[in-house]
């Protein structure tokens, strides 16, 4: 008797609960998720601008829906960005002073804003004007040192030009090599540089438990917060 009562109670309550849940719960979401991808790279003459992980970002604004808030699109360390969006019209901008580059001004009216009409997956490279480009960075292991030979190109020569503060070779355990994330580095001040096309940097290898190491060279420009980097190179030890 008693057990039967409990059983009954359980099934009926369960049934009621299930019905209630089905009735009260809404659909999984009110909107379908955004599916259209806008992606591309930040480039100068087709060459991607290499950056630091999670430091430089772009903003996408979509006017026409009441209050505005930017959709941040972070730029990865190899200069690529991507964002999943709804179809529609967007304005793409860089926040002030982001990145080791200046943006291209189209004309007085739109300035550097890029208008994007997104109706399908789009790949769009964004052209900017970097202060410097790292044209070549050859990283080699010489005995117990990692050496890099770097060649720089000063892109902006007019009154907006800026000097180099320092050039640094970073070593990292993983592919993410940056100022904050490295195990060894060596630095040359801008004032010590004689020939931009041939800068030699060398750093002693720290003791490691792994068979290869990742290296890249970064250039810090005076009064510019973000550094520009060379491609991450994997070096066999």
């Amino acid at each position, binding site marked *: 008797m008693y057990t039967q009562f409990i059983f009954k109670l359980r099934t009926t309550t369960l049934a009621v609960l299930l019905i209630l849940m089905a009735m009260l719960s809404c659909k999984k979401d009110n909107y379908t998720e955004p599916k259209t991808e806008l992606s591309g790279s930040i480039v100068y003459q087709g060459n991607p601008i290499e950056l630091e992980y999670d430091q430089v970002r772009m903003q996408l604004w979509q006017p026409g829906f009441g*209050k*505005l*808030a*930017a959709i941040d699109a972070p730029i990865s360390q190899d200069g690529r960005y991507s964002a999943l969006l709804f179809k529609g019209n967007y304005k793409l901008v860089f*926040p*002030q*002073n*982001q990145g080791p580059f200046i943006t291209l001004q189209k004309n007085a009216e739109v300035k550097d804003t890029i208008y994007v009409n997104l109706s399908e997956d789009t790949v769009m490279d964004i052209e900017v004007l970097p202060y410097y480009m790292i044209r070549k960075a050859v990283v080699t292991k010489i005995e117990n040192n990692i050496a890099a030979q770097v060649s720089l190109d000063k892109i902006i020569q007019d009154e907006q030009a800026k000097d180099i503060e320092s050039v640094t070779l970073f070593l990292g355990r993983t592919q993410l090599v*940056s*100022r*904050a994330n*490295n195990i060894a*580095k060596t630095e040359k001040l801008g004032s010590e540089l004689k020939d931009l096309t041939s800068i030699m940097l060398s750093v002693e290898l720290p003791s490691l438990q792994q068979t290869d190491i990742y290296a890249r060279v970064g250039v810090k420009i005076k*009064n510019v*917060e973000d550094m520009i980097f060379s491609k991450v190179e994997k070096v066999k030890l």
Partner: protein
Amino acid sequence: MKKLQYILFCFLLFGYGCNDDAFLDRPPTNILSEAQVWSDEGQVLSLLGNLYNRYYDIASVKDWGALGDFNEAFFSNAGSYGNFQNSGWGLGSWGSWDYGYIREMNLFIQKCEAANKLDPETQKRFLAEARFLRASYYFELVKRMGGVPLILEPLTYDFGGDPSYLQYPRAKESELYDFVISEAEAIKSILPALPTEKSRATRGAALAMQSRAALYAGSIAKYGGKTPTVALKGGEVGIPADKANGYFSKALDAAKAIIDGEAGNYSLYQKKPDLSENFSSLFYDKANNSEVIFADDFKLKSGKVHGFTIANQPRYGAEEEEGGRLNPSLNLVESFEKLDNTFAPIPTHAGAGTPLYYENQTDIFAGRDARLAGTVILPGTAFKGRNVDIWAGFQLADGSIISGDDRGAQKILPGKSTPEQVVGFDGPIDGFEFTAQTGFYLRKYLDPVVGSGQRGVQSEVWFIRYRFAEVLLNAAEASFELGNLGDAATYMNQVRARAGLIIPLKSSEITFDRIVHERRVEFAFEGHYLYDMKRWRIAHEIMDGNPISLQELREDLGRATKRNTQPWGLWSYKIHHPGSPSHGKWLFKPVKLSRVTGADRFQLGNYYSYISDEVINNNPKLIRNPNH
């Protein structure tokens, strides 16, 4: 008969019930009317008390984490390790936008001016206090956000559908500072020169605010050029360099007014013969404290108490099963000078790597600025009469370490048969929260009263917002910036002498680095560090995102822009080497804790906080801060 009674009763009911409108029109018993409030001094004071309680501090004893940020301390608290594993701060950090508070202060001022039943003298004082609080909050806003809309009267929406008449653009950064300075100038003669009053605005508080605001404005004008991208064309951020000297002389004048006694007699706290104890009791001694000018006061059993001592008390023998959260870093500890005015790292090794052995744990810190032991609980010293038990383990003859992974863990040492304690009850144990993971606990603002570490009691130690030592250092800095090095040395030497640094600095020794350093050690854990780094525009150099190596940690100790991106620790070990002369002695090792994996980078966009999109959507006249 009974029927008649009923009828009579009904008549009575009607008679009482409805013939009088006044019956329903009763004054509320739970709300005071405007007229009642503004005719009674006590009511007005309690309104003012509400405004006092909403005063904004960038850091205070109410929030231990904010007080020890920027790698001056490690957070020995499992939930806070993330602070040392990221690479900096979000752009919105330290933001504030409380125009509700401003509106209520404006309402208070408007209504207090209109009130006609208060004693005129008291009314004037109330008004001056409200203006002090309003200027204080605008000062706080300009430090965090740059120039903000300067609203000096209560704004009311007319529900007409067009709010644009309520939308004000941002004022210039310099206009905000000018406002704070001129308000202080206007109210200082109204406020009482009453050094015994610490929790209400006094003449001293107004002058101290004036001095600090002018100094900040002056240094932003002077050093703003170091970061040309941290500026806006309209002057909402950035102050023209040619205004610097004007501000510095205002800062000096206001500071001098306090030093010369125009606001009553303030002086450095010098009650106790032991200089370290003297320095630490300056913060908790609330009886006739001659140094404190303005403070956020607390009171036991009143509901306004705080748990700073609970959060940071030494864990061993603590009154609750917690504490030890703020562990001052070795970076800060070694920046305290030696008594001969020179800088030197904590001497752990002699020259080329041979470790130095010490008889007592405290010996290694001997001969330093008394403020070190007054700010930090060093291993081998006591709190509430009990010695802290901070030591990391035994070092054997072959250099190997025996230690434990629990507080006061026991192991058998070689050559012995019974287990004994191999690590302190206060740690340090890497990754073990509430122990002194850097090897140090915080002393400043800890309350030595019994019960202060209990959750049911808590502490009534006040939080000092302005004190006389700051006035002296403001005067020193302003004199320095105005080129009067002699005066700068005189002012600064007073503060240093109180800390036991009795060899006076010569005027030729007063440099920018000296000014920066003096404020860092004097005001550690008082909420000055961030604003000081910001106004000198050195925050991005101090926190540049690079990790600190051991070599680097020991170099350039007195340099203003010395890197401070990661907290280091200093662990002490007992030597276990029976038969050797070093047996039983102490040696010390700098350590970087395993939980510290990131290195902080202060972005240029951190100099002024992000104005939220919501605020900008509501008022399109606002422009964004630089680099956002």
